[in-house]
């Protein structure tokens, strides 16, 4: 009888583990295979730095979904390598707003979350190439006005650039991006940050883009 009980308990435990593993596998697969919806600008030049002001919105994000707004250097489009900084609200942040840095390069895929941005506040997000002890790195800063929220660096391999992106991203159109506002989009020359002098607009329906200039846009829709 005791061994029967043990067998039942073992069987139940194994079943539970299998169910959990299956659920996690399916969830991970769904997360990776999620469709993405974008709205924003591209600058089709390989500059080694990007900067932009992004007004913080705080939309409702359904379970399992992702919302993020960011600036990116597309390091290598053949290997899909990039470095990105912005803010997000998603399952990995317990559906709270968080700043983040994401890098995907020959060193691997890394993602860091940081303290929370305040809804209604505009932050300036910047990525620039540089060296640290002879190693190529990406310097990343987040500022609120002139006050620094984050100033850090991450290794870059390679430090290269195909083009720049400044986009709002969601994994479902049920997320409203009303209030989205990117401004002062700029690129790094090594000496300064001139404003973008051209842009490629992009948006996935049902999102809409209002092009104010080469370096400023608002977006809305969804929800």
């Amino acid at each position, binding site marked *: 009888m005791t061994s029967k009980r043990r067998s039942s308990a073992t069987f139940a435990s194994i079943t539970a583990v299998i169910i959990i593993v299956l659920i996690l596998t399916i969830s991970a697969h769904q997360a990776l295979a999620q469709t993405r919806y974008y709205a924003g600008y591209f600058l089709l030049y390989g500059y080694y730095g990007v900067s932009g002001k992004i007004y913080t919105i705080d939309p409702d994000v359904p379970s399992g979904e992702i919302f993020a707004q960011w600036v990116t250097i597309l390091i290598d489009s053949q290997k899909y390598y990039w470095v990105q900084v912005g803010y997000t609200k998603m399952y990995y942040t317990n559906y709270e707003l968080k700043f983040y840095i994401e890098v995907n390069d020959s060193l691997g*895929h890394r993602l860091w979350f940081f303290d929370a941005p305040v809804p209604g506040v505009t932050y300036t997000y910047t990525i620039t190439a540089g060296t640290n002890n002879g190693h190529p790195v990406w310097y990343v800063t987040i500022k609120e006005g002139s006050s620094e929220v984050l100033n850090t660096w991450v*290794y870059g391999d390679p430090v290269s650039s195909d083009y720049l992106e400044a986009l709002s991203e969601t994994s479902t159109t049920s997320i409203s991006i009303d209030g989205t506002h990117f401004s002062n989009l700029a690129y790094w020359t090594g000496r300064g940050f001139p404003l973008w002098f051209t842009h490629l607009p992009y948006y996935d329906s049902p999102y809409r883009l209002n092009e104010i200039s080469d370096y400023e846009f608002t977006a809305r829709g969804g929800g």
Partner: protein
Amino acid sequence: MNIRLAVSGFILVLIIVSLAIAISKWGGSIDLKTSESYVTRQLGVITPPPTIGPAPFEKAGGRIITEEQLNAFLERNNIKLCLPSWIPANLSLTAIWALVYDGTIHFPVVFVFSPDGDTYYRASRNKLIVALKGFSATLSERRENAFGMSTVDLFRYYIQRGGISVYDRSGNLIGVIIQGGRKGISWAIVDIGGVEYHLYYRDADTLKAIIKSMCSGTV
């Protein structure tokens, strides 16, 4: 009694796994002005991390172009194309991609050589990808201004870390081959005729032979 025990075991495993997941998913906040290793130590890199990710090449205007469009682009920019005259026998040109906006072609221009008709622009082990990334002088100036490393400095940086030097016939350092990166794809940057070429293939030796066959490049 059996059922009670089974349910208890089930719940216990659920609680343990849920706690483990919760702990692994979240780290906390960090101090400012940190190094990457510090950031990593404090927060931990989430494995496998979710991809927030940029919009891919296609959404930035990436599309397959015709040879006529390519030739017009090359002529307009006075670029003499230096594609390899030798590639592995099983490969053939399946597509030419470029960023196109308002009818204008932008770098990178990507040549896909595939053994099976695959036209996708991303590098993989069984394809050869040759991408023109831009005018070498402009890119070198951008690099030097941005992070104090000229293109030649960059080549030397990789050579010091095991990269293979690429010289032209006059003995000038014109590139580097970096062996077997992530997913086992080797990669090369070569500066030929004022244009920067990035090549991707599974092994460095074949890449060497391919580069040797490009215009005046010799390894």
